[in-house]
């Protein structure tokens, strides 16, 4: 047993730290640290900085432009980025579609799409959920009918996708579509790449309870998609879908995010006053903070145990469901404490204050501006990516054999 990183891994950590100190713009880290909204340009800027260093697609093999990191190095990178308040890598192209194309795409697809993910030519979003297919993802009913005309083989797509995160910024969407209505529900699904500028695609914003435009509905009306945009075999898209959902879940726990959030919370609790003393000394609040800190330390080690198992040749399976559940519980608890720490100042809600050019009235401490909104936004954590109840079903079936 040895919980320490190797000397080589420590060197790597220092390399990451030096890179972040040197190349992460303070303008971006300030926004992340204060819970302000990132624009598409902000995200593109950070992607470009990482890509220049060769660190953007850090889950990809070297042959496709990845850095060839071990699971431990990926963990360290993710962790250090969080501690430095770097923007998160927008996962849809780099972390989701990329690995699917590398595994299931043909050579033409790989050569065309992968470089465009890296250089930002395409901005991808994910067309999985539908209004009638949430936890029951295999119930997707958006249809793609195969046809042929003068311009070649194609699909005609009709239907509606829901909860499309950052779809308003995207020019491309990867979709699960039903290509066979006769087959059993998992067996009639295909994985299709759709250009969102095609006639018949319409993106409508959905404003979430925190007043934010993060998710969208995407409507497809007789959208013509070239047949060459099919990834893998027709009707075998569920294989791609599942691969995408389980790929690289070793960082699903969000340890770095929680460590950074807890550090911020501790700073806030040391400044906010209750009964004439810092909130951090309030017995009830201190107890809740201590409990989440202990849970986080335990989960970090659980995460590292899983990474060590992967490095040793194991495959991250249903264990990642445990990390997803506990990781989101911890992040939600920290958000909740952060909101409570603001007292009555959690209520004032000036949405413009979360934009970077805001110069208007500030009510209460600076951190109060985003506290309640972030808390409400983080309720999504236990719902998306397979709700925590679905994760328990997975644990029950795959690990417990019930």
């Amino acid at each position, binding site marked *: *047993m040895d919980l320490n990183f190797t000397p080589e891994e420590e060197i790597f950590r220092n390399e990451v730290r030096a890179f972040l100190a040197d190349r992460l713009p303070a303008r971006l880290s300030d926004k992340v640290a204060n819970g302000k909204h990132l624009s598409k340009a902000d995200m593109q800027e950070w992607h470009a900085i990482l890509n220049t260093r060769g660190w953007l697609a850090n889950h990809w093999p070297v042959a496709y432009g990845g850095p060839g990191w071990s699971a431990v190095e990926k963990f360290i990178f993710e962790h250090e980025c969080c501690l430095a308040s770097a923007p998160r890598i927008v996962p849809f192209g780099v972390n989701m579609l990329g690995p699917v194309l590398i595994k299931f795409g043909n050579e033409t697809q790989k050569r065309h799409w992968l470089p465009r993910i890296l250089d930002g030519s395409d901005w991808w979003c994910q067309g999985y959920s539908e209004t009638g297919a949430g936890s029951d993802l295999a119930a997707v009913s958006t249809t793609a009918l195969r046809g042929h005309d003068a311009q070649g083989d194609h699909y005609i797509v009709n239907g509606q996708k829901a909860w499309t995160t950052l779809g308003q910024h995207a020019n491309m969407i990867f979709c699960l579509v039903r290509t066979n209505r006769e087959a059993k529900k998992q067996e009639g699904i295909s994985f299709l790449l759709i250009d969102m500028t095609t006639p018949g695609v319409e993106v409508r914003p959905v404003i979430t309870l925190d007043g934010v435009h993060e998710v969208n509905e995407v409507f497809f009306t007789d959208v013509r998609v070239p047949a060459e945009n099919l990834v893998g075999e027709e009707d075998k898209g569920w294989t791609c879908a599942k691969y995408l959902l389980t790929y690289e879940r070793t960082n699903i726990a969000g340890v770095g995010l929680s460590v950074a959030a807890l550090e911020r919370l501790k700073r806030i609790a040391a400044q906010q006053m209750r009964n004439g003393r810092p909130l951090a000394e309030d017995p009830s609040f201190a107890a809740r903070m201590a409990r989440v800190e202990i849970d986080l330390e335990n989960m970090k*080690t659980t995460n590292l145990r899983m990474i060590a198992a992967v490095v040793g040749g194991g495959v991250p399976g249903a264990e990642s469901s445990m990390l997803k559940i506990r990781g989101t519980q911890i992040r939600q608890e920290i958000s909740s404490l952060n909101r409570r720490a603001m007292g009555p100042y959690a209520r004032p809600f000036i949405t413009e204050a979360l934009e970077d050019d805001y110069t208007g009235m500030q009510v209460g401490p600076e951190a109060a501006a985003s506290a309640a909104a972030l808390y409400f936004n983080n309720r999504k954590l236990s719902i998306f990516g397979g709700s925590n109840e679905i994760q328990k079903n997975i644990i029950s079936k795959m690990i417990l054999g019930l």
Partner: protein
Amino acid sequence: MNFEHTEERRMLADSLNRFIAEQYSFEARDRIAQSAHGFSPEIWQQFAELGVIGALFRETDGGFGGAGFDIAVVFEALGRGLVVEPILGSAVLAGEAITAAGNDAQKAVLADIIGGTTIAALAHDEPDTHYELARVLTRAERSANGWVLNGAKAVVLQGERADLFVVSARTAGAVDDEAGISLFLLSAKTPGLIVRGCPTIDGGRVAELSLNGVALSPDALLGVEGQGFATLERAIGRGVLALCAEALGAMEVAKAATLDYLRTRKQFGVFIGSFQALQHRMADLLLEVEQARSAVINAAAALDADRLTRERALSAAKVSIGRIGALVAEESIQMHGGIGMTWELPLAHYAKRLIMIDHQLGDEDHHLQRFIALGRQTAA
């Protein structure tokens, strides 16, 4: 980073697990745990011969281990068997106190402790002080011939069978000062020492000690006068790790038994494990036991770290074990239904032990407060 135990530790765990499976069946354990003696002297001797006690001591003290992960491996196995022999009290608590503070003459007894021929016990907790390291009301006063001790000690592990006690007593300061606590090493036969034993709900026996004008020679002082606190903290810290690992072993058994029950018990014509209400509870249990395992690893890894890092990791582990142990105990009984309430079901005894581990060396609340207080020292 490496989460594999060394070959030596794996072999020790294997042989210990095999011994427990063969010699320490539930029926045998139940008999031993309820016996008038409170443990089996024959089994105790066999544990010593297996090297279980020696594994808990460093080489410089005559053992062949003594690291955090040695304690973790041994006690996880002991927890799987609900072992009641006085390994915690004699080898870990008293053993560490003698190791840390004893002079050469006092340390001579370690060979007998490792060999199992001498049983030692740490007597620190008192009727009016629960879990506090520094609160000591028992007094030791200098006399013409050495020391005189007066006071009482509470719930001492296997106290009736101990040959030797390490007793904490105040020689200076206010009742809760860290400074001014001294440790004494005394024979169970010392006049004025009265030992009254009783059984416990989770098996084995404990004793209440009265010290009524116990006269000791000057060489009974263990370590430096007034500086016993650091030794107590080290010894009890190792005991906390041992208890956490023991709980982990017990949790694993309780979890497996409950899972087995969900797969075999039928109601409404189906296995009860097919009900989602129970599946999700079982998934939570699994998730929590993995966190408990991580907590034990963190504590074992921190055992030789600086004081604040070590003590925070130990308290964090005891908080985690307290919470998760109770969860596993209560959920296991609940998912077993009526049969979980019976003495004849081994699971019920694992549940009792898990709950009672929270009543030894500081419960969840105690260690949560301690974790917070230590955190302030780190920040300061």
